[in-house]
């Protein structure tokens, strides 16, 4: 967590020697707390003071990176319990489980499909993150071969799953450069797994289903063995225990700064659910409630899409709503004679209007103006959605080329813009739409005639 100036000051030499460029140690400490300068600028800082400061300023939940340079997942480093308090920063990795006993051809087909799944939403490209490969065969060579083949097919982040350090070693030989997550160190094998994690500089899962006490004891042993990059596996979690345990873990990290459990969490929703449909629901809950890596037991684009959407929604910064890129959007399959509506680029406004147009049975054109992500009334009040802006957008996006008529429907909330807009858009008919998106369908039925 960020340290206050006073807390930093306590660790400084207090000689006011000015070598850092500040008149006093206190002035320097204040700047450090504002992150305006690095603590290393103090030339006289003792080694112990530096270590103490570093430890104290470490994030409460460690940021863990899985994967190589081409594609990686970063999880952890969350700072709040509720997204409205600030935001959730690092979306959980969604990984598809593969077993090394499955026919390689089928596995590689899935790998190919997962790697090529790109869903376009609000101009963003949504994809799954990688694979968790399980050493179901219990054979080191089979495991290594499978890992190598998957990696050759698609270089996505991996979780390597085997309780056997020898099999893990064999698989790491083939993949360590892309920093897979090692699953897992348990109370039985932790020494060997810790060695592997250090040797290959890979993050390591600490797995202990017995209790959080024992999980904390395990992470401390791993820390002492020199492994810092950890992910927690508190054991199989159903709907209730997932919510309660993961909440406890986040609270311990954020409210108690409890280092031994200050790591992201890996979950396997299929382990406690009876059907693929139920697995998806639990995965959805875990996106909202505190999972860092979610391993799905199967790949299906039909469930990947809603989960990716859920992740996008939950990890949207509440202070910076998703904005649509301004432009002219076809809703349904509009013709040049179809209605033209105009709205702002606040994503929720766009979606409300687009959904209603979609449902209205009138394929339409929707002109989206750049209002810096503000909704209709707020944008109007802020002077970012006026007649001039609408007229400019009509020109900028060459609306006249898409449509054969010259009628534009403005939101009912900004009916006042009609007069001015008639001035700006000579020869156009300005129609005042309903104040609520919900009424668009009935409005079009009543007033739209070609």
């Amino acid at each position, binding site marked *: 967590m960020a340290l206050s100036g006073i807390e930093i000051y306590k660790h400084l030499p207090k000689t006011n020697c000015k070598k850092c460029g500040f008149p006093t140690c206190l002035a320097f400490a204040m700047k450090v707390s504002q992150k305006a300068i690095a603590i290393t600028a103090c030339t006289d800082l003792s080694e112990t003071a530096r270590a103490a400061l570093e430890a104290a300023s470490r994030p409460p939940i460690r940021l863990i990176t899985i994967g190589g340079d081409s594609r990686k997942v970063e999880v952890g480093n969350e700072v709040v319990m*509720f*997204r*409205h308090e600030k935001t959730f920063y690092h979306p959980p990795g969604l990984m598809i489980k593969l077993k090394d006993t499955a026919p390689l051809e089928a596995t590689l087909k899935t790998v190919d499909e997962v790697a090529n*799944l*790109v*869903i*376009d*939403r609000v101009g963003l490209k949504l994809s799954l993150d990688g694979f968790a490969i399980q050493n179901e065969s219990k054979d080191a060579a089979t495991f290594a071969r499978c890992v190598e083949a998957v990696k050759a097919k698609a270089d996505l982040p991996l979780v390597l799953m085997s309780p056997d350090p020898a099999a893990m070693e064999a698989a790491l030989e083939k993949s360590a450069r892309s920093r897979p997550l090692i699953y897992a160190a348990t109370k039985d094998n932790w020494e060997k797994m810790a060695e592997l994690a250090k040797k290959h500089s890979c993050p390591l899962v600490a797995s202990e289903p017995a209790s*959080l*006490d024992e999980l*904390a004891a395990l992470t*401390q042993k791993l820390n002492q063995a020199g492994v810092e990059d950890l992910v927690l596996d508190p054991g199989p979690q*159903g*709907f*209730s225990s997932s*919510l*309660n345990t993961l909440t*406890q873990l986040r*609270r*311990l990290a954020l*409210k*108690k700064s*409890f280092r*031994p*459990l200050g790591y992201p969490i890996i979950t396997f929703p299929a382990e406690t659910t009876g059907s693929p*449909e*139920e697995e*998806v*629901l*639990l995965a*959805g*809950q875990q996106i*909202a*409630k505190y999972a860092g890596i979610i391993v799905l037991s199967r790949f*299906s*684009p*039909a*469930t*990947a*899409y*809603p*989960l990716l*959407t*859920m992740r*996008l*929604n*939950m990890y*949207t910064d*509440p202070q910076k709503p998703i904005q649509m890129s301004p432009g002219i959007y076809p809703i349904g*399959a509009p013709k040049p004679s179809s209605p033209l509506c105009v709205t702002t680029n606040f994503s*929720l406004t766009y*979606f*409300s209007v687009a*959904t209603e147009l*979609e*449902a209205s049975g009138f394929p339409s054109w929707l002109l989206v103006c750049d209002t810096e992500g503000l909704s209709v009334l707020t944008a109007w009040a802020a002077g970012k959605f006026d007649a001039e802006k609408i007229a400019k957008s009509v020109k900028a996006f060459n609306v006249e080329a898409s449509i054969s008529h010259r009628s534009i429907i403005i939101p009912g909330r900004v009916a006042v813009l009609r007069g001015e807009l008639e001035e700006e858009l000579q020869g156009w008919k300005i129609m005042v739409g309903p104040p609520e998106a*919900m009424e668009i*369908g*009935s409005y079009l*039925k009543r007033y739209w005639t070609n």
Partner: protein
Amino acid sequence: MPVEIPVEKWAGKVNEVKLGGNGRKSIVIGGETTLPFLKIDGAMPHRPAIAVEVDDVMPADWSPHLIAAWGDALEDPAVWAKKAAEYGADIIALTLDSAHPERGNTGAAEAKKTVEKVLAAVDLPVIIIGPDVAEKDNEVLIAASSVGRGQRLALGNCVDKNYRSVAAACIADGHVAIAKTPIDINLAKQLNILICDIGLAPDAILMDPTTGGLGYGIEYTYSVMERLRLAALIGDKMTSMPMICNVGEESWRQKEARATSGVPATWGDHQERALAWEGITAVSLLNSGADIVVLQHPRTIALIKDAISKLMA
């Protein structure tokens, strides 16, 4: 080393609201002294309820998967309600859509008949929702109110434009008002205050914070609900009403659940996607404080019922 779990102790409590009774089955929702399903902090004495939407007219533009699942029942609200009860509904959410000026413009007389029929067909608690046009809502809700007198229905939507008459009907006939506001914590609180000022008891109010479906604003609803619930737990009486979310409609009306053609291949199997859309929306909003979720697909009813049991375990 023993790990000391931080526990939050809350001073506030969500109101307990009863629906039904007087010959009907009754149900109590609310009463939480903790965040949803978080048993480490406090109690959640009543499980969230599943209401199933039943419309008084055949839905015009429903997904073929919903139509296939309900079949002929869609043509008769009484048959539909019975089937919903068989599928596991705790509550029937009867929507008087035919009163909408564009969808039949029926009035008080038809509303009375429909409500009578549905009340006779099932013994579950019933929610009555108007067509979402304030004047028509008044007309049909007041008619429904007198038919269901004493059976503690929930009447919605009670919004800033019509709250006086809906609340007055609730007071006169012993019903519960569903106070609906557009995804805003202050507006929600404000409407509760106005309704209470008229004289409706706080335990006769449900809040509908307006549901954004998955991909269509769910994050706003989710966070507004978390904030409303946190405010209630801190002790704000005017945000302590249980919450109801219209999950089914807001999921199934989206292109992802409805469109049968012209969608990218990357979207995968239609039915599987649509069910996941409704299911994830429901689970998320249950986790942010929904006490009633209104659902549409029979499969979702079963899945969410099971998920609620597991969350309560």
